[in-house]
């Protein structure tokens, strides 16, 4: 086989860091693959795109992408990204992190960034557990599943992430599994060209901890489960999107609306108050209503 052809995602990766630390059968790499293809399709200026991650398995994404990247402290990906966006509004800022990082320790930052409609794209890879630290209960862990910290079964009510993002005011909310690669790529592409707080949840297998401790097989079994039991319901009411232990997963694009972003609202208010003496803050690459 002639190996003159190169992989289309190679230009987006730091090849000297390959292979990745992710376990065989982990879905994070698949989501990164879709993300790299969405970057190509959305025709974003890569010099003006930056990716911010927190801590965790998914937090390693920022280290593997050959974009301007920022690997921040635990849970603080969104505050760093907010600062990055406000300091240089011309950047496309993308937050790529796991659910333990974004929703547990960084939960407060998440809801307030969504409330302000900060101009960020947040990709949250949800594997129902803390992978890097050994399989503890995370905010999305389904009831009844066993974990290192819940050997008799988890009994807390898990987060319904699309409902959380929707009710806090995100302008674009979707959920896909790592089985739905084409749909996930399309959602990422749409979200990249939109303005405001956009949220994509990616359900991913964790073969080493979640699957193994609950005797659910390996990563491939999880992918087959997603194939058989996920229901595509675009525009579904986000209140109905709870995920139980091995129950059907509703996926789709749920919310797509527009609302003034933080910088737009600030400019509008200060122009009203100060009149022509106020110099509007630059609104960034999708400014002047050019968003899709």
């Amino acid at each position, binding site marked *: *086989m002639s190996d003159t052809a190169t*992989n*289309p995602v190679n230009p987006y990766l730091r090849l000297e860091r390959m*292979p*990745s630390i992710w376990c*065989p*059968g*982990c879905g994070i790499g698949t989501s990164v693959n879709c993300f790299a293809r969405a970057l190509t399709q959305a025709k974003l200026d890569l010099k003006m795109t930056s990716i911010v991650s927190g801590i965790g398995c998914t937090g390693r994404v920022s280290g593997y992408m050959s974009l301007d990247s920022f690997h921040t402290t635990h849970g603080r990906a969104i505050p760093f990204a907010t600062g990055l966006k406000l300091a240089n509004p011309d950047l496309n800022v993308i937050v790529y992190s796991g659910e333990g990082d974004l929703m547990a320790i960084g939960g407060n930052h998440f809801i307030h960034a969504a409330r302000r409609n900060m101009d960020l794209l947040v990709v949250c890879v949800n594997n129902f557990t803390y992978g890097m630290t050994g399989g503890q209960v995370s905010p999305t862990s389904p009831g009844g599943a066993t974990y290192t910290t819940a050997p008799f079964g988890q009994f807390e009510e898990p987060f319904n992430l699309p409902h959380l993002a929707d009710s806090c005011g995100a302008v674009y909310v979707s959920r896909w599994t790592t089985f739905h690669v084409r749909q996930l790529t399309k959602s990422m592409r749409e979200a990249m060209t939109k303005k405001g707080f956009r949220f994509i949840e990616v359900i991913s297998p964790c073969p080493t901890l979640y699957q193994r401790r609950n005797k659910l097989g390996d990563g*491939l079994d999880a992918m087959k489960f997603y194939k058989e039991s996920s229901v595509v319901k675009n525009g579904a009411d986000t209140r109905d999107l709870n995920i139980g232990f091995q129950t059907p997963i509703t996926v789709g694009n749920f919310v797509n609306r527009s609302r003034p972003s933080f910088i737009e609202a600030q400019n509008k208010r200060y122009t009203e108050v100060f009149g022509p003496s106020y110099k509007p803050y630059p609104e960034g690459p999708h400014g002047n209503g050019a968003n899709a």
Partner: protein
Amino acid sequence: MSDNEGTKKPKKVLGTVHVDRDRCKGCAFCIEFCPTHALELDKGFNAKGYHPPVLARPDDCNGCDLCGLYCPDFSIFGVMTKVA
């Protein structure tokens, strides 16, 4: 292709896959979700001891690159070439 040449339309595109064997971790996503079931696990090992995929039925491959989209380790991708 030679058996049913009279009934099948001639192919307009030929597909093939390229595999970076040493990046593969043997998760078999590409083999499971290949629409034409053209891939199989290799009998041999790569440097890390995993079985990488191999194009077992080259005639079936249409180069759709779905394997490339599924691959978590960026080790496989499909290409289409037009038949002259």
